[in-house]
């Protein structure tokens, strides 16, 4: 991104404003290893990435969002770590980290997004973490294929699912975080038990071993995995039902769903966001780069269009070169505002399957899968 002096001043002003806001609102929380993050919850940590950090294709670990349903388990000693593989298998296994490292290792670039990213934009409001744009990040995950682990254990061909449990446990009667994954997705060559992200093994992101289910909602990518069981049926725990389900039929906003008409969320929709300039940012007159990121679940991004006039006219943005399924593309558009005043910038993505980001994102009782065309208001100032 070309960084003009004017743009630098604008960024500094924006950072100063963010820092002012931080001073006003924080209460001294520091998350070791993380840059200043938007804190939705500090125990357990639910941290959102400020959009200004989204200027690299790989999101650095120090800026990557964190979602935890349950308190983080105490740090797992890599020597003591064991993965139990059981259920409908010929040979139950108890694997060490060294065993997992002996299997062929694969690197998968994938965007992981919290199912509720954008929940704060739903009207009427729904309960849950009020994520805005930043419960998302793109990393290079590396580890053995889940399929290879299941083959080693001799998974029964009639097992239709795997059940995956993390080392985290609930407080009081809070349900344990256990998720099921259909066997065909578990066996997909890009589904891995990641042993690192961007070459690092941060405890807060689920290491020494976490699932990566590319293109599916982040909830599927269980952290601190200690058990994989081959099963005939999907699990029935809270985090499979009623948690993380989406209405089969669109609902009038604010109305409840019938439990029988809720379905497990699998793939993710097409979506783009504007990272710069930021909402309500004041910009000096002159040329400007509008930039952001776009992704499409299991598909790749084909096109991103940007409007600088509230959606009347659209222009194609430039896309970053990696056109991959599962991973986002960064985009940018050079623009010179003709006049000072208020502008509504919008971004609209299209994926390789022809899906287009909608104007209206369907409301749902848990606020999942927000993907409306992104919209940011900015003020272009008069020349001094």
């Amino acid at each position, binding site marked *: 991104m070309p960084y003009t002096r004017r743009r630098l001043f604008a960024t500094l002003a924006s950072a100063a404003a963010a820092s002012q806001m931080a001073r006003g609102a924080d209460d001294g929380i520091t998350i*070791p290893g*993380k*840059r200043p*993050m938007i804190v939705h919850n*500090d125990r357990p940590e639910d941290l*959102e990435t400020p959009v200004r950090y989204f200027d690299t294709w790989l999101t650095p670990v120090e800026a990557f969002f964190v979602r935890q349903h349950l308190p983080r388990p105490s740090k797992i000693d890599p020597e003591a770590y064991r993965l139990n593989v059981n259920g409908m298998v010929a040979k139950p296994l108890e694997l060490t980290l060294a065993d997992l490292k002996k299997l062929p290792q694969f690197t998968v670039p994938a965007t992981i997004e919290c199912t509720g990213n954008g929940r704060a934009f739903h009207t*009427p*409001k729904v309960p849950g973490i009020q994520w805005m744009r930043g419960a998302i990040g793109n990393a290079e995950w590396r580890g053995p294929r889940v399929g290879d682990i299941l083959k080693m254990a001799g998974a029964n061909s009639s097992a239709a699912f795997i059940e995956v449990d993390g080392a985290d446990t609930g407080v*009081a009667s809070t349900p344990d975080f256990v998720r099921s994954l259909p066997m065909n997705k578990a066996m997909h060559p890009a589904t891995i038990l990641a042993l690192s992200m961007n070459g690092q093994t941060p405890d807060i992101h689920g290491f020494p071993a976490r699932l990566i289910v590319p293109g599916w909602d982040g909830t599927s990518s269980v952290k601190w995995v200690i058990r994989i069981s081959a099963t005939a049926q999907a699990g029935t725990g809270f985090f499979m039902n009623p948690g993380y389900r989406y209405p089969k039929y669109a609902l009038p906003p604010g109305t409840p769903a019938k439990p029988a008409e809720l379905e497990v969320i699998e793939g993710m929709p097409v979506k783009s966001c504007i990272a710069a300039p930021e909402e309500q940012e004041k910009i000096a007159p002159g040329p400007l780069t509008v930039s952001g990121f776009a992704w499409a679940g299991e598909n790749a991004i084909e096109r991103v269009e940007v409007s600088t006039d509230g959606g009347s006219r659209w222009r194609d943005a430039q896309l970053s070169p990696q056109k991959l399924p599962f991973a986002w593309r960064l985009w940018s558009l050079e623009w010179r505002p003709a006049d000072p005043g208020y502008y509504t910038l919008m971004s609209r993505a299209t994926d390789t399957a022809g899906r287009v980001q909608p104007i209206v994102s369907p409301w749902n009782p848990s606020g999942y899968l927000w993907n409306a065309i992104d919209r940011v208001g900015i003020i272009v100032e008069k020349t001094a």
Partner: protein
Amino acid sequence: MRKPILLGAAALAGFAAFAADQATLDRGKKDADLACLPCHSLRLVQSQRLSRSAWNKELDKMTGWGCKMTDREAILEYLVANYGDDKPPSPPAMSKNGVPPPQRKQ
């Protein structure tokens, strides 16, 4: 012309029936702190903006998950009064920088 005054008085009485008194709200805050803090920080609660019925459902969910509430009604009144869906969203809080500065090579 007494009718409007009577209607006004009736409306006020109706309002009083729904608006919790300060003692209830204070008790609700204290009880909410005690009930919520064993499992998560209060920030999770304070960042929500929910209707009375949505808060009621949340309290049911938390009770099901083992949450002990001394005075459920006071907690509900406190949540609705402070974190109702008619309140503006809370400003995002930022953490401080937790990334150590790069070490200089000798």
